[in-house]
């Protein structure tokens, strides 16, 4: 299912070649649309020619319809598609500056590249200016880093903001764009000369097709958690049955000490159990709140290993399936859960004092008198103290989809 791990498929230089080709097509289309010409770009701001609006919003709508359609059809895993994280105020501040730069300079970075490539001298000056501006940014950002990193809402989409299905927003955006095109054509007629070439008859057909696709997307809907799991159930269930993803407490301790890895531990038990005892730095993440946490997990760097744990393995396996269905990479289950962890790392006094005589499945077998949380040596064992034998199972997957960088 798309998107693909193209570095895995084509190798390092093969992947670069793919990006080069994409860039080539991008530059060619921009040039063919006339965006190497600053007069055409600036005309947008005087309503004389609305080419920028038409090209931009047609592109956004077409790409949007295709993305959400293929997602609804189960062909594209939207979780692995890069959604630029929302940093609200730096974004707005930067956007305003960009608008000012656009009307003064007559380009945006992408169009200036195309313009420079066709030897427009104003384009070349713009690229030089942009390079200078970017250089200035690199030198000055350290003085207001706080602002630059503020209002981080993470991976946040319009459907999530409005609390509606993606299909609703897709349809709304399509309708809004069609309305804007109609408005743009009126403005062009009033303020500029109407270019007959800009209004071919087939645009009505295209508009109808766009609306039709938007309605289909709305009706089919985006895949549910259940559907996502079904798609990978066979392969993933095999991993579970073969015990390939359940790691020994010793391996977890080893991973925690590995300087090259980031380990995120998700403790999916009840709050009571979590408060009685949890491993130091384990996050409390009850299973029903997991799907909300997923966007944050996707934003983690590529060297992150996620370990889910419950008292034994029942709830953790449940959680593992939820995360697997949402395409979170590098997920493992703590074998034997917190109970096994305490079996291995708790000292004899703790065990004799607090061990239950009998316990239900996935119930905490040690019950301290008070809620100790992680204030216990067993919460952060010293690896050197223990001689542990285990089969290491963790293998970092190459991160599919976005390399966590967006535009640089």
């Amino acid at each position: 299912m798309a998107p693909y791990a193209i570095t895995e498929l084509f190798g390092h230089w093969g992947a670069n070649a793919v990006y080069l080709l994409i860039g080539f097509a991008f530059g060619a289309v921009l040039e063919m649309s006339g965006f190497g010409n600053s007069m055409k770009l600036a005309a947008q701001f005087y309503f004389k020619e609305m080419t920028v609006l038409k090209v931009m919003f047609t592109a956004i709508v077409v790409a949007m319809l295709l993305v959400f359609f293929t997602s609804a059809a189960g062909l594209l895993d939207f979780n692995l598609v890069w959604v630029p994280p929302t940093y609200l105020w730096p974004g707005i501040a930067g956007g305003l500056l960009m608008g000012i730069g656009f009307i003064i300079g007559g380009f945006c970075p992408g169009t200036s590249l195309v313009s420079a490539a066709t030897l427009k001298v104003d384009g070349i000056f713009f690229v030089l200016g942009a390079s200078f501006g970017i250089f200035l940014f690199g030198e000055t950002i350290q003085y207001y880093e706080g602002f630059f990193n503020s209002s981080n809402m993470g991976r946040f989409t319009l459907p999530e903001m409005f609390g509606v299905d993606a299909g609703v927003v897709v349809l709304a955006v399509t309708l809004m764009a069609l309305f804007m095109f109609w408005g743009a054509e009126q403005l062009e007629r009033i303020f500029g000369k109407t270019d007959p070439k800009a209004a071919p008859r087939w645009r009505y057909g295209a508009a109808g097709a766009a609306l039709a696709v938007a309605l289909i997307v709305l009706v089919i809907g985006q895949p549910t958690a259940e559907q996502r799991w079904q798609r990978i159930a066979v392969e993933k269930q095999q991993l579970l049955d073969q015990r390939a993803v359940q790691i020994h407490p010793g391996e977890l301790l080893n991973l925690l000490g590995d300087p090259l890895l980031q380990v995120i531990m998700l403790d999916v038990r009840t709050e009571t159990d979590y408060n009685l005892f949890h491993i130091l730095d384990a996050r409390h993440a009850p299973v029903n709140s997991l799907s909300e946490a997923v966007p944050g997990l996707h934003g983690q760097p590529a060297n992150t290993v996620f370990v889910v744990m419950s008292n034994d393995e029942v709830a953790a396996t449940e959680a593992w399936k939820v995360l697997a269905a949402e395409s979170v990479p590098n997920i493992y289950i703590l074998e034997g859960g917190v109970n096994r962890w305490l079996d291995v790392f708790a000292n004899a006094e703790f065990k004799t004092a607090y061990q239950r005589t009998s316990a239900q499945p996935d119930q905490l077998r040690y019950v301290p008198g008070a809620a100790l949380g992680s204030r216990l040596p067993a919460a952060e064992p010293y690896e050197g103290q223990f001689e542990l034998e285990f089969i290491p199972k963790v293998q970092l997957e190459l991160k599919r989809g976005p390399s966590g960088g967006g535009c640089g």
Partner: protein
Amino acid sequence: MTTQTPARPLPRQAKMKDANRREAKPYINPYLGGILLGIVLFAALFITGNGLGASGGINRIVVFIQDLVAPSHVDRTAYLTSMAGGDLNPLDNWIVFITLGTLLGGFVSGWVHNRVKIETNRGPQVSVQLRWIMAFIGGAIMGYGARLARGCTSGQALSGGSVLSVGSWAIMLAIFGGGYALAYFLRRFWN
């Protein structure tokens, strides 16, 4: 003795041949351009998971040059070191290849359509030199703003907009807002 002048094509034919060779071909219809651009963007998202971008590529090229000239400074500055600290090669990144491709594609399309020409596009009331100065200044402001917003019209408005990122739409509105707000005061510059 008369020298024989070689046969010459008729003047009218010569003019047409010249015109065909040098006259720029017309641009494509904006809606068609938009559809093609949307397909390219979709292909990028579908195949690689990444969208398009431009300012990030320019950023990395700038940092590469900085790293050649002042590597210890780069290592000491947090924003720069993430891209070029130590042995890290800032050019070894997908966005740089998209940027190189964009330059190539723009050039080839321009060449095929006879639009590669050394010239300056400017408003009728403005001198060439003033246009160049404004292009540089506008570029600087645009470049600065693009990195502050973590992406420009290609990376945020176009790519982020198509996947419905809230931040991207906010940025898009801010770009157009900023542009339109200042447009009135610059009307003599462009018209």
